[in-house]
C-alpha cells in the first residue's frame, strides 16, 4: 500500500482512539474541574465498565445487539452508582482534601482491580459487537483518463468503528447540553466556581459532588463499553486509559471540557498514526514527553485560559 491510504487507515484508527479517549478524559476532567479531586481510580471505572459489559452481554441471550444494548445502559449505571457510593463513604469523609483523596483513590484503584481479578479472573474476554460490516474505503489515483477511484487491498474500516465515533460525538454533545442548558448543570458549575457561595445559596454541594463523581465514572464506563467489542475486557485494561486521560486533561487545561476534548482528538489521532507507522510504545512516550513540556512551558494547558 502507498503512504496515502496507509495514512487514512491510521487516521481512522486514531479517530476511534480519540473518541473513546474524549469520553474517558471528560469524566476525569469533570471530576477534577468541579470537585478538585484527582481521581487515580478513573481507569478502574473504565475497566469495570468493560467487565460489566462482558458480564451483562454473556447473561443475555439472543442476537449480540441485545446483550450489547443492555450493557450500554447497565454498565455506566452500575459503575456510576459504585463511584457515587465511594464518594459518599470515602471522599466525603476526607473533606475532599486534595492530597488525601489522591491516596484514597489509589486505594480504590487496587480494591477494584483485585476484586475484579478475584471474581472475573485474569482472562481477556470479548464482547460481540452489535453489528460489524467491513467497509472497504476508496482511494484516489491518477490514471490515463484522469482522476479515478480504486479500492486498495487492506484499506477498510468497520461500521462498528464508525458508530463508536458517532456515539462519542452524541454523548459529548449531551454532556455539553447538560452543563450549559440544564438546572443541574448550572448547579454543578456554580459549585465548581465557588463552593462556599454555592452552599450559602442552598445548593446541596455534597449531592452535587456524588452526582459528578458518579457521572465521571459513568463516562469512563460508557467509553469502555464502546471499546470492548474491539479490545476485550481484562482486569488490567485501566492503565492506558488512565495515563492517556491524565495526559489529555493536563494538556487540555485541567478541568476545562472543551480543552479536554480538543486534546483528546489531538492525542488520539497522533497516537493512532504513530502506532500504525512506528509503535504504540513510541506514541505513549511522545505523549508523555509532550505533557512534560506543557507542564514546564504552559502549565495552564495548551487550551486552558487561566491557571488552575
Amino acid at each position, binding site marked *: 500500500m502507498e503512504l496515502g491510504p496507509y495514512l487514512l487507515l491510521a487516521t481512522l484508527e486514531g479517530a476511534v482512539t480519540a473518541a473513546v479517549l474524549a469520553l474517558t478524559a471528560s469524566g476525569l476532567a469533570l471530576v477534577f474541574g468541579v470537585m478538585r479531586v484527582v481521581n487515580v481510580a478513573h481507569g478502574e471505572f473504565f475497566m469495570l465498565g468493560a467487565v460489566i459489559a462482558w458480564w451483562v452481554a454473556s447473561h443475555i441471550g439472543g442476537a449480540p445487539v441485545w446483550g450489547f444494548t443492555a450493557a450500554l445502559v447497565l454498565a455506566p449505571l452500575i459503575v456510576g452508582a459504585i463511584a457515587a457510593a465511594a464518594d459518599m463513604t470515602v471522599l466525603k469523609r476526607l473533606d475532599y482534601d486534595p492530597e488525601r483523596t489522591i491516596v484514597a483513590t489509589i486505594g480504590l484503584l487496587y480494591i477494584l482491580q483485585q476484586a475484579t481479578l478475584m471474581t472475573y479472573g485474569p482472562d481477556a474476554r470479548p464482547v460481540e459487537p452489535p453489528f460489524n460490516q467491513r467497509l472497504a474505503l476508496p482511494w484516489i489515483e491518477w490514471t490515463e483518463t484522469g482522476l479515478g477511484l480504486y479500492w486498495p487491498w487492506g484499506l477498510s474500516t468497520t461500521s462498528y468503528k464508525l458508530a463508536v465515533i458517532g456515539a462519542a460525538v452524541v454523548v459529548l454533545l449531551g454532556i455539553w447540553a447538560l452543563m450549559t442548558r440544564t*438546572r443541574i448543570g*448550572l*448547579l454543578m*458549575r*456554580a459549585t465548581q*466556581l*465557588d463552593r*462556599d*457561595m*454555592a*452552599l*450559602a*445559596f*442552598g*445548593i*446541596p*454541594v*455534597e449531592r452535587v459532588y456524588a452526582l459528578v463523581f458518579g457521572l465521571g465514572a459513568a463516562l469512563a464506563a460508557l467509553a469502555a463499553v464502546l471499546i470492548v467489542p474491539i479490545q476485550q475486557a481484562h482486569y488490567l485494561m485501566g492503565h492506558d486509559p488512565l495515563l492517556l486521560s491524565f495526559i489529555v486533561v493536563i494538556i487540555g487545561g485541567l478541568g476545562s471540557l472543551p480543552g479536554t476534548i480538543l486534546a483528546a482528538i489531538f492525542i488520539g489521532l497522533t497516537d493512532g498514526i504513530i502506532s500504525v507507522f512506528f509503535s504504540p510504545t513510541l506514541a505513549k512516550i511522545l505523549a508523555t514527553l509532550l505533557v512534560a513540556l506543557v507542564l514546564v512551558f504552559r502549565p495552564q494547558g495548551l487550551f486552558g485560559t487561566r491557571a488552575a
Partner: protein
Amino acid sequence: MLELDAIGTGYGKAQVLRDFSLSVNAGEILCLFGRNGAGKTTAMKAIMGLLPLWSGDVRIDGEAVGALPAHQVPLRGIGYIPQGRRLFTELTVAQNLEIGLRARNSGPEVLDEVLDLFPRLRERYRQRAETLSGGEQQMLATARALCLRPKALLLDEPTEGLQPSMIEAIRQVILRMRDQGVAVLLVEQRVDAVLSVADRVAFIENGRNGEILSAEALRADHTLVDRYVGI
C-alpha cells in the same frame, strides 16, 4: 429574628470568635463594627454554617440552625452578601440570579422586583458576571441575595470601593429591606455610613463582644466610636 448565642469558632485550631453574642430584630439594622481582623467576616460565615460552631448556637426565628448542614441554613431565609462579592464569575447575570431564586423557590415576580431595584442589571442580563464593573458586581451580589426573599440579610462591607452614588443606592436598598421587616446585619468600616443607616451598633474586639449602643447615642457622642476604631 437572628440570634447568636455565645458562639465560638475559628479556623483549624486558631479560635477567632469567643462567646460572641448578637441579636438582630426584624425591621432593624444592626451594624457590626470593629477593626480589621476582629472577626466580623468570621461571624457571618459562622451564621451561614460555613464554619463549624465550636460552642454556642445560632437561632433563626427561635430555631437552632448551628447543627444544620451549611446548605440548609439559607433555606431558612438568610441572604448573604459576602465581602468581595464572590459572584459566580463565569455565569451570566441571569444565571447568578437564578441560583438565588432557586434556593427558596422564588417566583418570577421576585425577580422583577429585584430587577426594578437594580435596572442596570436588566441591561446586562446576558453578560458574564466577571465582565461587570465593580459597582455592577456589587449590585448583582445584592440582587442575588434578595432573590432568596430573605428574612435576614447579612451584608459584609457592601460599599467597599464604590463611588458615592453607588453607596447611596445600596443604602436605599438596605433601608427599604428594613422597612419591609427584614433583619439586617451590616458590617461596615466607614463611620458616617454606619451612623446614617444603623439602628444599633455592636462593637467587636478580638472576636469578643464589645458594647452594643443605639446609633443615636453614637451620633451624639463620637468619642465612643473613636475608642473602638482607635484612629
